Each structure stands twice: as C-alpha cells, then as structure tokens.
C-alpha cells in the first residue's frame, strides 16, 4: 500500500471508527442512531443556512489548525494557539473600534494587528525555547491563562461598552457581507473563509517552495544536520512560533471581524485553539489535510446543534463522538499497523 494512500485512509478510518462507537453508545443509551445521524447531516448540510453556518465555523478551525500544524512541522508543539487566538481577537476588535478608515486600509490593518498580537504572544515561548531550552508546551499552556485573564481585564476596564463587551467594530473593518448572508438565508457566514483558504495556500507555499521552508522543515526533522548545514536552529525555532502565532491571531480576527463584530469577556477558553490541535492531528499537519479536517470538525459542531431538537439526542453525545474521533486519530498508529498487515497479506 502506498504511503500516500495510507495517509489518506488513516484519518478516514479514524472518523468511521468514531461514528461506529458513537452508534453503539447511542444504541446502548436508547437513542435512534439513524435519526441522530440524519439530524446531524441535515443540521450541517440540509439547508443553505446551515451550510453558511458550517463555513463560518470552519474558518477559525482552519486557521487554528494551520497554527498548530506549522509549529509541529518544525518540531514544536504549540499548545498556546488558544491564547494567541484570544489576543488576536482583541487586537482586531480594538483596531476595528478605535479607528475610522477606508475599508481597503482598515480591514487589512485590523487583520495585521491580530497577526502581530498572536505572533508576539507566541514569540515569547519561542524565544525561551531557543535561548534557554524551556519547553514550549509548559510556557504556552501558562500563556493561555495569561491571555485569557489579561484580555478580560482589558475589556472590562478599558473597552467596556456595557454588558462586559467591547463596542461594535466599524463597518469598514468588518468581514461581514450582506450578499453572503442573503445567499445563505441570513446565516452568519462572512468573507473570512477566503482568508483561511489563502492561508492554507500560504502555509503550503512557505513550507514546500521557499528556502525559508526548506530550513524550517530541516530543523523539524534534524536539528543537528540543520546546524551542520549552516542554518540557524534558534532563529528558525523562534520564527516558526511567530508564524504559528500569527495564524492563530488571524483565527481570532475571524471571530472579531466576522462572526461577532465585538469581543465579550470570556468565561473560559473558547476551545478553538484546542480544537486546532485535533484538526492539525487529523489533517496530518499538512495544509490540505488541515482544510479537510477543519471542514469535518466544523460540520460536526454545527450539525450537532440540530440533534437535540430533531432526534432528541443530547448535544453532549456529539462532543463524545468528536472526542472519540480524536482518540482514534491519536491512536492512528494502531490503524496504520492494521493497514500494514492487510497490505502485506495482499502482496503474498
């Protein structure tokens, strides 16, 4: 079996296994799985409105997935996407509220602000890793909390426009489009998906086609050989964290400039950053893979909203199915071994 086919089959089998185990759980707890999965499907694709919602949900998932995947390709585990996402969101909203500029300047400026904020937030763990070999996982986890509480504090004390949220961004910084909303019978779909797709392309191009990507991947595979070849390992570590954080920051901008148009005090983590880890894993840390796995996660998330009403299945069950899929992906090693067995027998 070719490596390529195997890398495509593995996530598909993982998803199927998650669905099968989900079926069993539903049967055991007395729900009708056919009704439930029909509701899930219709809730995601049964109507253009729902599809619009799915696309809106997929947008930050793609970007968060890219963020995790990018760092991973350089051998770093960026658990801090959640924090970088939150600071990116605030930065975008702040620019959206505080300035009044023509759209061609204002919108890019707001997105760039989110990139810079996310990038800076990730720069700190990158620097600590490069200079002092402090493990990035610990630093980024801690910085998630720092981001959450700092951002909440700023919203509450500096940007509060009543009911613990910022004011609405100006129209000139918004990603929303009446045309898209019309098209999807008033869903919250916005232009962000274009940016997310563009970022997929950018990540692929950067890693696979540029000299910088050549260095980044070399550092990810073999730091000693990269050093031998005259590449700066430390510089590439920091850079990869910054780029990863910038992707996460853009993900935040999608929520701030597209979905909500403001930022409210967050009661806890949004989960987008953590889902990004699962998205990247399922997508095999490639740009294209991240795109498809984000699509899956977004569809599940939106489709699940219909399950309680249509099929009487608690929404929590969908969370369990998602968790199962992640579980099977994380243990994809097992699937790979089984696939190997099959292909070996095939040769005989």
């Amino acid at each position, binding site marked *: 079996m070719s490596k390529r086919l195997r890398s495509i089959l593995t996530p598909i089998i993982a998803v199927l296994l998650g669905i099968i185990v989900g079926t069993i759980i539903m049967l055991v707890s007395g729900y009708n799985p056919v009704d439930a999965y029909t509701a899930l499907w219709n809730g995601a694709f049964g109507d253009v409105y729902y599809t619009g919602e799915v696309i809106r949900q997929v947008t930050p998932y793609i970007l968060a997935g890219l963020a995790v995947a990018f760092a991973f390709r350089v051998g770093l585990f960026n658990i801090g996407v959640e924090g970088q996402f939150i600071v990116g969101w605030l930065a975008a909203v702040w620019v959206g509220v505080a300035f009044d500029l023509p759209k061609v300047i204002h919108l890019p400026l707001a997105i760039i602000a989110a990139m810079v904020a996310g990038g800076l937030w990730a720069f700190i763990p990158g620097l600590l890793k490069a200079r002092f070999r402090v493990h990035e996982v610990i630093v980024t986890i801690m910085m998630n909390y720092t981001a959450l509480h700092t951002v909440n504090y700023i919203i509450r004390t500096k940007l509060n426009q009543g009911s613990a949220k910022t004011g609405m961004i100006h129209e000139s910084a918004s990603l929303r489009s009446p045309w898209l909303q019309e098209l999807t019978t008033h869903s919250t779909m916005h232009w962000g998906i274009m940016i997310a797709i563009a970022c997929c392309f950018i990540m692929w191009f950067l890693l696979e086609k540029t*000299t910088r990507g050549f260095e980044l991947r070399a550092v990810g*595979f*073999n730091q*000693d050989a990269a*050093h*031998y070849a*005259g590449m700066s390992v430390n510089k590439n570590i920091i850079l990869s964290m910054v780029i990863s954080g910038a992707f996460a920051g853009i993900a935040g901008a999608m929520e701030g400039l597209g979905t909500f148009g403001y930022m409210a005090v967050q009661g806890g983590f949004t989960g987008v950053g953590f889902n990004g880890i699962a998205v990247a894993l399922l997508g095999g840390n490639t740009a294209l893979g991240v795109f498809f796995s984000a699509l899956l996660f977004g569809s599940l998330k939106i489709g699940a909203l219909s399950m309680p009403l249509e099929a009487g299945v608690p929404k929590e069950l969908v969370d369990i199915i998602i968790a199962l899929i992640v579980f099977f992906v994380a243990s994809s090693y097992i699937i790979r071994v089984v696939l190997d067995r099959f292909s070996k027998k095939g040769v005989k």
Partner: protein
Amino acid sequence: MDYVIEMLNIRKEFGGFVANDNITLQLKKGEIHALLGENGAGKSTLMNVLFGLYQPEQGEIRVKGKPVHISNPNIANELGIGMVHQHFMLVDKFTVTENIILGKEITSGGQINIKKAEKEVREISERYGLAVDPQARISDITVGMQQRVEILKTLYRGAEILIFDEPTAVLTPQEIKELIQIMKTLIKEGKSIILITHKLKEIMEVADRCTVIRKGKGIGTVTVSETNPNELASLMVGREVVFKTEKTPSTPKQDVLEIKDLVVKDTRGVTVVNGLDLHVRAGEIVGIAGIDGNGQSEFIEAITGLRKSESGSIKVNGKELMGFSSRKITESGVGHIPQDRHKHGLVLNYPIAENMVLQTYYKKPFSKNGILNFKEIYNKARTLIKEFDVRTPSEYTLARALSGGNQQKAIIGREVDRNPDLLIAAQPTRGLDVGAIEFIHKRLIEQRDHGKAVLLVSFELDEIINVSDRIAVIYEGKIVAVVNPKETTEQELGLLMAGSNRKEAGEETHV
C-alpha cells in the same frame, strides 16, 4: 550432517525489490562463519530473516536438521539464536546486570533478585573471559565493554548461535584484538558464530568459512584457509579490487589550514583539545591518527563551526575563522564529511536531491528571491548521483532509504562538488565495504591532486597510512607527533597514539 543452522534457498522481497535471491548459508557447529557482502548486498536482510524479523517468501530454515518457522525474535531466542547488534540496545542509566536481565528478570516474591542475577552474570562473564563488571553503569563503560554486555545478554538467554553484526565497526584496534580472542573462546566453549562483516582482514584472521553474497544473490561459500583477501574481495565486488590506493607523491604548496594553540571543551566542560597546532597545505592529505576520545570529534567540530572554541586561532587561506558560524566557514571554502552521517550529514526524511543542496539551497541557481527552484535542484542531484555512483531508485527517494555506503557517497558528492579549498573527512569510510572505501579514497586523492588540502580523521590505521601524505598523531588533545607514512609502522603509530613519545616509540619498534 552436523549443521546447527541451515538457511536454504532463501528469497525475500520488498515490494518489487529482491533483497535476498536464493541464498544458502549453512553453519557448522563450532565454527565462525563469515557473511561477506557489500553494503546493501542483503546481509542484514538475511540475518533478520534468521532472527525472525522478516518472513522469507521462499526457502527453508533448519535448526539442527529440523525445519523451523521463526515468526518473531522470541522464537529465535528460544531456538538459541542470539544477535549482537551493531547499534547497541542498552539502557544507559542501568547497570550491566540490569541491562542483561531486562525482560528475563529473576524475581523472588515480586522483587528482582539482583544479587543472584549479578552472580550469574559474573559467572558467565568469567567463563567466556569477558571481564565485565556486573555492577558498572553502562554510561560509565567503554564502547568495547558495552559490546561485551551485548554478548553477555545473548549468552544469558542461552544462545548457542551468536550473530555478530559488524562488531568491529565501533572498536579501536586493541579492542578488536580482544574481541577476536573472545570469539575464539566462545567457539571453544561450543558456541557457533555468524560474523557479518566486510573487513577482509578480520575474516582471514578469525573465520573458518565464508559465505559471500553480492547484490542479493548468494555467490558461494569458501573455506578461509584456502582463499586470500584478493579472491574474497573480487567475489564480493564482482571485479578486481585494488588494495593499495594508487597515488603519486604529493606536491604540497601554501598552507590552507593553520591552527595555533587551539583549546576546545566538550559538552561536559572538560578541556579535550588542549593547545593543538596543525597545518595542512594545498595538495596534501594530512591524516589524524589517534584512539577514539582524544579530542578528534571536538577538534573537527571546532574547525567546522559546530562547537565553540575557547581560545587559539583557526585560519583558512590566511583568514581567521575562529568564532565564525558554520555557514560562514562553509562559504570560506571548507567542505566537511561529518563523522556521523545520520546525525549531521543528512536530513534522513528529505529526498536525496534536497540533501544534495543542504548548504547551497539559498544560492542561485537552486533558489531565487527565496523561492526554491526544484528543477535545478533535481538536475544537480541527477548529475551528482551519476558522477558519484550513488545507487538510489531515484533522486526523490528519501535519504533514509539508502544504504550507508550510498548515503556516504551522496555526502561526498555534495561536499566535493562545492569545490572547497579544504576538505575535512571525518571517518569517511566507517562501516563501508571495500568497493565504497576504494571509491572514497580515490576521490580524496583526486581532490589532493587538484591542489586542495585534505584533512582526514580516522580510527583505521590502514586507511591513515594508505591515504595520507603526512600523519599527525593526536593524544589527549594535542598533536604529539607528525610522521611520514612511508617511514612508519602500525606499531610505531600505535605506541604514539597510546602516549609514548617519538623517541621511545622509535626505539621500541627497532628492538
């Protein structure tokens, strides 16, 4: 017949690639049977079949005359087959005994009976003359000792048949002698040995019979006492091999590398290069002879920018390079064939083509404005693959998939192609077969003849004496003597490497 192992007409394929094609190997009880072949000839595959790691497509394995089916290494162990791996499988932080009993612990009441285990280990060690301290920690003992622990491990598990996979590749000349002694003791005690190697000298010295394989095919089995190294080499390579590397006298010119009073510390902070002076001229090969651990690795790392030097001066073509990054040093005309090709030399997960431009990817024509030009990269790779006879299915193949010799050829191709004024070759032929060694030596001499300076570091005295124009002996981080290879002997070098001074060494050899 009294064969303990018979592998009859073994065939093993990977995809469409035939790694073993109809190979027969019969091991008599109490003999040392060498398995000879070039890198990638299929020696390891054959042994992995015997050890149960691979299943053959065709053929039969018999142990003591009975056909067996070895589906995993545990079964091999039960049949009394033990493998001494080339890359040791030891836990550094454990003691010798703990490593040996790992997976086969003696317990009493749920606790490991370490006392009893130590006693057993000591008994086996004494019986076979291994002289291993059962209480020593693996990280504290020498590589040679670690290898003996591997041998002990197989004996502890009751092995009757021992497979040695390239056992001398990591040893010093002294340790090799001791290992040969150990192997002879093992035979005396009734064990049988399969020795995987491509060192003809060792086969001549220790083996009774030798099975030769070439490109996956069994060429035949010869009795060692009735053959000679030349015959073995041509059987292995399939053509005549020149042993003495042909070369004209050198015509050295100006200094290319000048090192003065170099001081380098190792990772633990111990000064391992301690006031080293050396110069290498254009058009000569200087060989560094020394026992492993006398500062050679750190010395090379310091001149190539992989390690910081404490003090001193490193000049290439008169330009001070002390404290420069490896990129700057590379650009100043230094080529480096690193000692460890997996750690430093290659990004194993990159295609062979991308490894060919590992230091030049940012230059034209391989990239422009930061965008890689894959067409040029693959063109370059194809040229080098052809010129340096790198045997690979394609330039897209991952470096990981190539055999050691071909990986090394790829590195040498890359380094030579950059046309450096100074070529540093650290153990360039380690673990390679005669064909590849011959090729690499020729290339080094060719560089010299083109007026380049070549610095060769090797633990193989043969190689140093054969290839070098001058030999510098390193001992405890200093060059203690510089000798002419034509006027010295292995014995004199051996003594110098062990720290005797020139005069003593000279006297002893003359007595």
